[in-house]
């Protein structure tokens, strides 16, 4: 059920599990726990719709690389960022979980096989059917001729706006209580370092109420930027912020680097290519195979080819097409495509979420985002584009124009992110290397868990939400074990 915190008289609440944030991670976690009969409280900072006063709370400073306005990049209402998610789904690749010696700080505490069953369980939540590609129908990319590339697919989830999809179910639920307009402002810990309660406040214009929530277990699920900010805010009155004994909270902020990397002029005659068309359900892409990534010491990246009528290849293009076609033994006749890449970033401490000196409407420091793109990030993109250009040239399929004129003199300022905020409370095997353990539990606060992409130690190229949902289901299994309802517990004991 939904409870409007602006209108209630009580101030103290108690539950087994208290989730902060009703975005994809918090919602799916709650639904999974509900299914097991476990009562859940959710604190949601916004309402059921986008409202200016709440969005203003998401504003922040950009002190590093230029980035989107943070109150556009984040959505502070029921459903969270699923409200502007395009629905692209793809499990992370096996290599993304591994310790790659050329990527400092890489590796998850578990492998891809651990998450695989949770990806399967994630599908029904977004109505994502199992996908068996029929390449003859969807694309004619000659994969055998490009052995360094893997052709693969992303899927579009038909029902990805989770706030809409599950609003009725949450409204009817007897086990899930969603407190709307409740902004978390404080943590209370006991002498053992366990979290005893959290304090939430409504904005001044909404009555400036203060509510306190006690629980056995808390889960922070407010997004890749806000999770870090909330933890950093907890430093007030403490030696260091919760989870931050080793200065990892907020560090290693990562995005997926997005840009059009070039134009591909494909010889129509030699290359009966049908583009990786976007249907309502899937999209094809190319990725350099793992062994090439190892040899080149780069990270994971996918490239999408999109045919467009709006491409202007410049005045020299006709000559290029003519010469290239003749060199390759074809007749001139070209189709132009954009080469778009979506590339992984290396985790670095120089890329971080911190606290600004400016305050929000509740008097707390706003967020300061200091996004950084490293040399390894740039090398990854360069190498991918070069391999693609070579592959098409070698096979006589066409030529590629690299954007900005030269691999070595890229104007990197056109790189953008994808509103994918990741890595700021990273998962690690030990407290020395991260904030949460392999179960998403904070190393130094045993009853506080973190859900969402902030726990990703590495991101791969796949859009994060599908993995966020899979991880939330995995966390639900863990919490369900800790919070078995009494009846079920007794039954289990008897048996």
């Amino acid at each position, binding site marked *: 059920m939904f409870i409007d915190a602006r209108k209630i008289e009580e101030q103290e609440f108690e539950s087994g599990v208290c989730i902060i944030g009703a975005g994809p991670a918090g919602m799916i976690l709650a639904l999974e726990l509900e299914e097991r009969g476990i009562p859940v409280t959710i604190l949601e900072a916004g309402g059921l719709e986008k409202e200016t006063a709440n969005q203003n709370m998401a504003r922040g400073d950009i002190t590093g690389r230029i980035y989107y306005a943070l109150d556009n990049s984040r959505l502070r209402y029921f459903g969270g960022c699923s409200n502007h998610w395009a629905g692209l789904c793809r499990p992370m690749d096996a290599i993304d979980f591994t310790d790659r010696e050329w990527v400092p700080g890489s590796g998850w505490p578990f492998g891809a096989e651990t998450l695989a069953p949770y990806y399967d369980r994630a599908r029904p939540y977004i109505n994502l059917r199992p996908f068996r590609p029929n390449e003859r129908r969807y694309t004619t990319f000659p994969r055998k001729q490009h052995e360094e590339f893997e052709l693969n697919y992303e899927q579009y989830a038909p029902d990805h706006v989770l706030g809409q999809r599950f609003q009725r179910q949450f409204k009817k639920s007897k086990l899930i209580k969603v407190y709307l307009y409740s902004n978390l402002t404080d943590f209370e810990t006991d002498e053992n370092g366990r979290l005893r309660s959290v304090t939430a406040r409504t904005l001044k214009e909404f009555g400036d109420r203060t509510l306190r929530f006690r629980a056995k277990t808390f889960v922070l699920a407010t997004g890749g930027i806000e999770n870090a900010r909330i933890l950093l805010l907890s430093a007030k009155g403490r030696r260091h912020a919760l989870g931050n004994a080793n200065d990892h909270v907020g560090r290693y902020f990562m995005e997926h680097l997005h840009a059009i990397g070039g134009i591909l002029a494909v010889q129509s005659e030699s290359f009966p290519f049908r583009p990786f068309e976007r249907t309502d359900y899937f999209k094809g892409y190319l990725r350099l195979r793992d062994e090439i990534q190892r040899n080149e010491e780069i990270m994971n990246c996918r490239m999408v080819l999109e045919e467009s009528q709006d491409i202007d290849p410049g005045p*020299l293009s006709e*000559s290029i097409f*003519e*010469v290239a076609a*003749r060199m390759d033994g074809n007749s001139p006749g070209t189709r132009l495509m954009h080469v778009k890449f979506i590339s992984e970033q290396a985790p670095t401490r120089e890329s971080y979420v911190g606290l600004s000196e400016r305050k929000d409407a509740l008097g707390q420091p706003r967020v300061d985002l200091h996004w950084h793109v490293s040399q390894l990030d740039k090398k990854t993109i360069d190498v991918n584009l070069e391999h693609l250009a070579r592959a098409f040239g*070698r096979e006589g399929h066409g030529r590629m124009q690299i954007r900005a004129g030269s691999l070595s003199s890229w104007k990197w300022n056109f790189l953008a992110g994808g509103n994918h905020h990741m890595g700021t409370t990273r998962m690690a095997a030990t407290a020395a290397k991260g904030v949460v353990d392999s179960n998403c539990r904070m190393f130094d606060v045993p009853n506080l868990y973190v859900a969402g992409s902030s726990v990703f130690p590495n991101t791969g190229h796949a859009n994060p939400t599908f993995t966020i949902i899979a991880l939330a289901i995995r966390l639900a299994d863990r919490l369900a074990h800790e919070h078995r309802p009494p009846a079920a517990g007794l039954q289990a004991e008897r048996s």
Partner: protein
Amino acid sequence: MKLSRKQFLLLGGGGSLVLLGAPLAVYLRELFLDGAVSPESRARLGAFFQEHPAAIELGRHYLEENPDAGGEARLARRILEKLEIEEPAAADELAAALRRAQIRDWDRGEPRLVRGWFLTELEVLLCALASMLSTQAI
């Protein structure tokens, strides 16, 4: 000079030699054996390139962006080196050598970027030669 379909097929079917044609074989053979190219051979190759303005245009851009690429003799010798043949012989052998050199370049060679276009060194050298010959009186 334009190659007939029969000539083209004799050149190995690799359309690559449509650009170069037999004149290049003669031109390179003279360069290889005599160390110099006769005015007649140069004129024949230049005339051939005149019929392929795209190559001249591309070469012109390459030379603009790479003023140190060298003169005609140096370009021709670099092409010869890239072909990695014992001795330049018939045009069909040249066609095969050219295709091999092109693949080597795609696999391992340093890319050459002309106005951002990712091309092989062999491509741009040939076009640069075309451009250079096109500026001479034929």
